């Protein structure tokens, strides 16, 4: 192997095989992948969840994760949020000529570790290399298939009095990547919350029909996701600013960057609307799970302000939280 990836590694010839067989397969091997066919043959399920996501995060190594970990978590988490149990992933790379082979290996190792953690197999994939200047390091696409385990989730099941919960401090991924990229603030130790949500999701969904809807609030942040919950319904959501868990570091960095944690991306949090009678019990349970220690009830579903999300501010004011507008943090995932 060369120490950088050149165009010929994407030629489809011998060097492409080298990349696949020397780097990818040893780390990700399983019965389906080892056949190295054009596609993988999988056992059928009665009801499936199918999801896809592309990853272009810049920088591709950041505090708390990297593009590899993110590319597994992203798709796995989407499947979990639909009530699915993730099983298989496809994995495709677009690599810019000149990419360091050791960085590629690091990314593959991270994919391996994350895939093991959430018990999914990478069963098919593709690798392309583009000329220098035509890409930016590395882009990844993953698609995933899961078995549908819980088919009752939907915003039509929310009702007045339900409670809104979140599984921990918000806004960490968006801010961590932003800081890493801009190198703006020193002395603030911020780590992306990037992690697979399969375990937390299972804990939540164990409450069966008491769970109304859940989502991982990635781009657009908590505020945007909650808006999607109430859009087109006769219900509104009222949040309490003082109950929303935000770390001091995120708060401080947001002040300096001029962004709002409510709109900053998360890659390891679930926000869910749940029946009020189990909310406390659920929070207790979630707080015992790794990554769920800061779980909290942050608001409630109301019949006021239908189709709107409102925020009761710490000083007692109320304001509307719209979907993310204007402000953008490009290429955070």
């Amino acid at each position, binding site marked *: 192997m060369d120490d950088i990836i050149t165009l010929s590694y994407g030629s489809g010839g011998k060097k492409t095989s080298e990349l696949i067989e020397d780097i990818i397969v040893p780390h990700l091997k399983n019965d389906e992948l080892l056949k190295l066919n054009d596609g993988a043959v999988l056992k059928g399920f009665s009801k499936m969840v199918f999801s896809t996501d592309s990853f272009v995060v810049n920088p591709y190594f950041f505090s708390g994760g990297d593009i590899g970990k993110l590319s597994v978590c992203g798709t796995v988490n989407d499947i979990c949020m639909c009530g699915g149990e993730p099983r298989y992933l496809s994995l495709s790379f677009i690599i810019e000529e000149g990419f360091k082979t050791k960085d590629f290996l690091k990314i593959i190792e991270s994919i391996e570790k994350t895939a093991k953690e959430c018990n999914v197999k990478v069963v098919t994939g593709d690798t392309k290399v583009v000329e220098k200047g035509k890409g930016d390091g590395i882009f990844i696409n993953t698609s995933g298939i899961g078995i549908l385990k819980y088919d009752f989730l939907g915003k039509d099941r929310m009702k007045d009095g339900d409670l809104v919960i979140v599984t921990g401090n918000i806004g960490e991924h968006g801010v961590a990547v932003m800081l890493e990229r*801009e190198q*703006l603030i020193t002395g603030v130790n911020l780590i992306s919350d990037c992690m697979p949500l399969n375990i937390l999701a299972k804990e939540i969904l164990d409450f069966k029909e008491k769970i109304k809807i859940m989502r991982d609030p990635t781009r657009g942040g908590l505020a945007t996701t909650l808006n999607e919950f109430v859009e087109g319904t006769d219900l509104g959501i009222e949040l309490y600013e003082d109950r929303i868990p935000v770390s*001091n570091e995120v*708060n*401080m960095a947001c002040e300096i960057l*001029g962004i*709002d944690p409510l709109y900053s991306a998360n890659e390891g949090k679930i926000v869910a609307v749940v029946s009020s009678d189990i909310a406390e019990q659920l929070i207790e349970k979630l707080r015992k799970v790794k990554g769920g220690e800061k779980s909290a009830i942050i608001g409630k579903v109301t019949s006021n*302000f239908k189709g709107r999300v*409102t*925020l009761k*501010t*710490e*000083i*007692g*004011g*109320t*304001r*509307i939280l*719209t979907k993310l*507008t*204007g*402000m953008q943090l490009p290429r955070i995932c």
Partner: protein
Amino acid sequence: MLWDEFKKPKDIERILSIIRNYDKEIRIMEICGTHTVSIAKSGIKGILPENIKLISGPGCPVCVTPTERIDDILLLSKNKDVLIATYGDMVRVPGSIYGENLEKRKAQGFDVRIVYSPLDAVKIANNCKNKEVVFAGIGFETTAPSSAVAVEKAMNEGVKNFSVFSLHKKVEPVLRELINMNDFNINGFLCPGNVAVIIGEEGFRFLEREFKIPSVICGFEAGDIIYSIYRIIQMIENKVYKLENEYIRAVKPKGNEIAKNIMNKYFELCDDIWRGIGCIKNSGLKLKDEYSQYDSVKKFNLDLTLYKNNDFCSCGEVIKGKIEPRECKLFSSVCTIENPLGSCMVSSEGACAAAYKYFDLR
């Protein structure tokens, strides 16, 4: 006191109950865009009784920049040898042609970079010797000193391909202009704490000395603002019209001498045009003649005299505090954050953007 505690000071309820029980009609202007956003974000307007009105003033730098200057920058950006560096707020500001802005220029392949400090623009100039780096410097006394520092750095390092397009303005002249208007009807000012960090309490002393308008130099947390409103009410009630400094944790009587000195070393006053207001004498900052090689206006021979007030929206009236954003006929119908027409909507600190994004539920 921790930073967080300024958001919700312990005795805020007591102060709020006094404010809530106040029954006279008063109009308080928050001069600064950062205050506008903070007020909107914390829902302060919804807490105040109807008779206490908060009016946004001319303190959002993007909002007061005339469209013609944006056009100048857009024209410069089309020059393949030019690299435009500027603050993030500037990239989406539309010029006089609908849909034209720096963000679009970037997508078209022209070189536009967002920087957090003009020093980064000097760094870029150092790394891209084949480009003329133009830093579009915008802002009041808060950002003007850092533009001056950048010029000094470029001089010291012999960076010749760097220049500043100064859109910098001063706060005092526009306040005087507003106060001297016939229909001026503001009872108190919330003065921008960030500007005061530089120019000091003395920079706002004229409000007390010459005009006897109750004014408070104010920090940017909700608690700061509510306390300052309370102080203005107290001054009105006690008929003691003076300037107070609520933001003592950052603002000194004389301000930041170093920042003032470097600003005065490189910049001098010039007559300048304010969007919606027109030309105000000695209200702008331009680079002194001896630094003209760092002045984009001179370097590219730009003609800044043109100004036709042909804005189709009411940004000018909003900036002067004459109307509320909602009263502009384009607000939220044609002019939205997604498709802003006026500068007050495009700037994240603009009164219209704040009203659109965080509208209160009173």
